């Protein structure tokens, strides 16, 4: 499968939420879509999921417009924090019904997941707790095995053990059935290890799209005495600084050369990788 956005633009009335979005996704990998609240994550995903049309520009999936395209729409699933008010059926019944419309749905796997997330009872979904409802969304998303599977912050309502179970299941199932999985989130530090590739969206624009390893090698964290760190960091782009007593930690943006590493060693500094969270915060920081 391939997703390609060309000059994608979306406005709600006069309020533009996506500006000139261009990106391409080709491989069955896990993509992290990061953005602050209101950055346009959900709007972008809702166009991919055929929930709405773009105002202008194009979004193509396998070279075709997905909106009202029966073949493409069957292959794409967008799970979000859904309102289940009035849903009188228990999870197991709903799943059997969804299976009728999802060509790759694995009912056995779905039942197994319902058990793992403790959703196998006969309680109507509307009466389940928020966390359980989120877990149910996760089950549907995983078991549908759609070639394009999107989770738009569905995991926010789940507690830490449930989220952990989701991450494990996601990695396990992705290995057996590779597909394009897009996870939108702002729980960056918790989920960064899941991402093969990261797309950061800010104020309706794509800020960057890079493999996870490349992004985290875009910077380093340097820890040591205040003076040594300042000497080392002089003239470099500093993303973040922290200080405790005489110990200073600085996150530096940009490639570090071999010479830099040597001089750090001479200054007695410790060099570590930069966290995606730090990069994300710095890159999407509002100008004062």
């Amino acid at each position, binding site marked *: 499968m391939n997703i390609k956005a060309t000059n994608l633009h979306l406005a709600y009335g006069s309020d533009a939420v996506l500006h000139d979005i261009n990106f391409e996704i080709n491989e069955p990998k896990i993509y992290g879509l990061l953005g602050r609240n209101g950055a346009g994550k959900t709007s972008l995903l809702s166009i991919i999921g055929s929930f709405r049309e773009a105002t202008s520009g194009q979004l193509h999936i396998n070279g075709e417009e997905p909106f009202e395209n*029966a073949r493409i729409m069957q292959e794409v699933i967008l799970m979000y924090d859904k309102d289940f008010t009035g849903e009188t059926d228990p999870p197991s019944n709903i799943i059997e019904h969804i299976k009728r419309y999802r060509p790759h749905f694995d009912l056995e796997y779905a039942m197994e997941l319902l058990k793992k997330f403790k959703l196998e009872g006969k309680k109507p979904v509307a009466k389940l707790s928020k966390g359980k409802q989120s877990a149910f969304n996760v089950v549907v998303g995983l078991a549908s095995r759609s070639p394009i599977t999107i989770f738009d912050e569905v995991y926010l309502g789940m507690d830490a053990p449930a989220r952990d179970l989701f991450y494990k299941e996601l990695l396990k199932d992705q290995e057996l059935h590779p597909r394009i999985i897009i996870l939108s989130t702002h729980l960056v530090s918790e989920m960064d290890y899941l991402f093969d590739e990261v797309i950061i969206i800010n104020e309706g624009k794509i800020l960057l799209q890079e493999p996870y390893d490349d992004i985290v090698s875009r910077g380093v964290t340097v820890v040591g005495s205040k003076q040594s760190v300042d000497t080392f960091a002089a003239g470099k782009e500093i993303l973040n600084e922290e200080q405790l007593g005489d110990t200073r930690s600085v996150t530096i943006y940009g490639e570090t050369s071999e010479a830099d590493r040597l001089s750090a060693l001479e200054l007695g500094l410790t060099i570590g990788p930069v966290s995606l969270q730090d990069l994300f915060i710095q890159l999407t920081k509002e100008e004062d």
Partner: protein
Amino acid sequence: MNQPKLFPKVSFDLFWVQLTWTFWALGIFLVINLGKIILSEHVDTFYAASYVGANIYMLVIGIISIAFLTYYVENGVTRKDYFLGNVVASLGLSIVLPILAYLISLIEKLILNFFTHIVLTDPKLDEIAIDIDGNIIGEILLSFLLTPFINPESNILLSLGLFSLHLFVFYLVGWLIGAAFYRLNVVFGILFIAIAIGIIAFKDSMIRLMLDIPLFESFSTLDFVPKGFAPALVVVTILITIILIRQLTKRAAIKM
């Protein structure tokens, strides 16, 4: 590659789920009807009694049916397949409901005749509406409640057909109102309620012309329509309603 055609599956599923709701509704109508038989002397047949209730029931489930749009798009079904599926399902439901009501009515009559002396009546609903002539609100309300009725014993097919026609139009206007509120805003939603009332009043007036029943005074200007044109105008009204629903849902954004 050909596009998969999902609407037959959608039709079947939507017909089935709404039919299960209908069993519940008919059950409730039956309880009320039986209650009346115990409590009073002059009671309508189940068929005649469900005539009024079923219209309102269809209006309500028509309004709710817009929720299926979200459900199907979320499950990768196009708005078009949802639309076609629900047109077929609602038409099927409109045909089946009168037959069920008639069968229940027959069984009820048989049992009552066998065990009691209670006689049920099939009233002519149009005869009740005489004393409020000229009051437009009253007449609109009555056109909702007292759709033209034909006694099944005089012409069973015409009676069932007319029952189905009313149910189908009530469902469609409910769906139209639901779609307008979903796609547009409250102001337009209310505007579409007015359009829906107009559709019902117009359809009823046309049927009154066809059946030689006098028109309500407020709609008497419609009597210039030749009797032979009335059926065609009913069909056109239904088609316009269906087209409006499609236009409202065709490109509707799903609310998240």
